[in-house]
C-alpha cells in the first residue's frame, strides 16, 4: 500500500539550517548535511531544503549543500527558494536534488512550470504555494488567495484556480503552505488542504502548522494530504521521526515502516 510521506523541511541560510523566531530574526540550528543524515537515519521519507539566503553572491553555497547531501542520503529530496530560471533548476538537479520547488517565480512566470516539466520531466517540478484565507470575492471564489515573496505580497489570484492551472502546466506535485497556520504549531489548515487535494490529481504535500503527531494524522485522514511537511517539531527535538511514525501506524495511517 502506498504510504503517506513525512517530509522534513530545512530552511538553509548561507549554508546553515536556520529557524525564524518571532522578533529575533533567524537563528542557526545546525549543519544541514548532518541534520539531513540524522533524519534519514530516523526514517524520514523525503527532505526539502529551502534556501533563504538573501545575498545573491552567497547563493552558490546551497549547491555545495545539495552535493554533500546527495552523497550521503539515498531518499528523494527537493530544493526550493530563489529558483527563477531553467538554469537555476538545472544546477540544483545536477547537484543531486530529485525535485525543484518553484513558488514566486512560477506565479510571475507560469511558463517556468511548463518549460521545466518539458525539459526535466513533470516529476521534477513541485509547485510551492503560499495560500491565505480571505473574503470570498469574484476574483477569489475559493476564499484562499495566493501570496508571493515568502508570504509578503498578495497576488489577487485564487489558490484553487492556481493549483489547477499549475497541474495543467505540468507540475508534478503541489506543496501547499497555509500562511495562517504557518508557525502556529496548532495544526495544518485542513479546509484549504482538503479543497486543493480533492481538486487536483497530482499529490499534495500539506505544509504549515505541524506541532504534534495528531496534526499529521488529521491532515492525512481528514484532508486527504499525500504527504505532510514538518520542521520545528523535529528540529527542536520535541519529536523524532520514528516516534511520529509509530503514532501514525497505531492510528491506522499507512506509513513506511522503519526496519
Amino acid at each position, binding site marked *: *500500500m502506498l504510504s503517506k510521506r513525512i517530509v522534513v523541511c530545512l530552511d538553509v541560510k548561507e549554508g546553515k539550517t536556520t529557524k525564524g523566531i518571532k522578533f529575533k530574526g533567524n537563528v542557526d540550528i545546525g549543519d544541514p548535511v548532518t541534520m539531513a543524515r540524522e533524519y534519514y537515519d530516523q526514517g524520514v521519507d523525503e527532505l526539502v531544503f529551502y534556501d533563504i539566503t538573501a545575498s545573491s553572491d552567497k547563493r552558490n553555497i546551497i549547491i555545495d549543500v545539495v552535493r554533500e547531501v546527495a*552523497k550521503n542520503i539515498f531518499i*528523494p529530496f527537493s530544493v526550493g527558494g530563489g529558483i527563477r530560471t531553467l538554469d537555476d533548476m538545472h544546477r540544483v538537479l545536477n547537484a543531486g536534488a530529485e525535485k525543484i520547488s518553484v513558488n514566486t517565480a512560477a506565479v510571475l512566470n507560469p511558463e517556468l512550470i511548463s518549460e521545466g516539466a518539458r525539459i526535466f520531466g513533470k516529476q521534477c517540478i513541485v509547485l510551492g504555494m503560499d495560500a491565505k484565507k480571505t473574503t470570498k470575492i469574484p476574483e477569489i471564489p475559493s476564499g484562499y488567495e495566493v501570496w508571493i515573496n515568502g508570504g509578503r505580497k498578495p497576488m489577487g489570484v485564487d489558490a484553487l484556480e492556481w493549483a489547477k492551472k499549475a497541474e495543467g502546466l505540468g507540475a*508534478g506535485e503541489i506543496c501547499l503552505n497555509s500562511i495562517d497556520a504557518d508557525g502556529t504549531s496548532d495544526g495544518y489548515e485542513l479546509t484549504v488542504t482538503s479543497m486543493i487535494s480533492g481538486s487536483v490529481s497530482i499529490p499534495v504535500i500539506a505544509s504549515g502548522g505541524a506541532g504534534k503527531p495528531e496534526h499529521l494524522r488529521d491532515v492525512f485522514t481528514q484532508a486527504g494530504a*499525500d504527504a505532510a511537511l514538518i520542521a520545528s517539531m523535529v528540529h527542536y527535538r520535541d519529536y523524532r521521526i520514528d516516534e511520529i511514525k509509530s503514532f501514525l501506524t497505531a492510528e491506522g495511517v499507512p506509513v513506511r515502516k522503519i526496519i
Partner: protein
Amino acid sequence: MISIIDYKAGNLKSVERALRHLGIPCRITNSPSEIISSEKVVFPGVGAAGKTMEVIRSLNLDTVIHEVVKRKTPFLGICLGAQIILDGSEEDDARCLNLIPGMAKRFPHLGMKIPHMGWNNIEMVREHPILKDIDPEAQFYFVHSYYPEPQHKEHIIATTHYGISFASVIGRENVVATQFHPEKSGRFGLNILKNFAEWNGKC
C-alpha cells in the same frame, strides 16, 4: 566495472552516487565499446518513453543494448528502464526494445493520484538474486504514470498494489528491471544495487 548508459537525460548521477557509496566501480557512458565490454550494465530512466527511444536509436544504443543482452551481461533497468525493455509503451505509442514481451500501460483513472508517487511495498512472486535479503515489509520509492505489463507471468518477479496490481520487478534471464528507484529507496534500495553488482546474470 558497471556501465550506466548515458542517453542525455534522466538522473544518471544519482545511480552513480549510490554505486560509488557502495564502493562499486562504475562509469556513465554512451560509448558502444565501453558498454559492450563492461561486466554489467544499468539503464536508469526518467522521462517519456517516446523521446527516450528516439535518443536511444539516434545514438545507436538499441543495437548496443541488444548486443549486451545477447552476451548474457547482467542488465538492470530502472523506472523508465523497466518499461522500454518491453515491446512498446502506451506513452507516445513508442516502439521499444523487445527484450521482454509486453507493454507499458497507463494507470487507469480509479480516483487515485497519478503519478503513483511515494513509498510502496513489493510482493515477491518468485525468488530472484537481486531481491536477496530484502525484508518483506521493505518499501521502495516510486514515481511513474505508466507501468510494465509483461505478456508472460514467468517474467514477473514482484508486484505492487496501487489501485491495481502491477509488475514492479520484472526479469528474463540476464535482464532484470525495477519500476521503483533503488537509488532513492534508502537502505533496502542500496541492498538491491549491491545484489545486482554481485549477480552473475543467472537465475
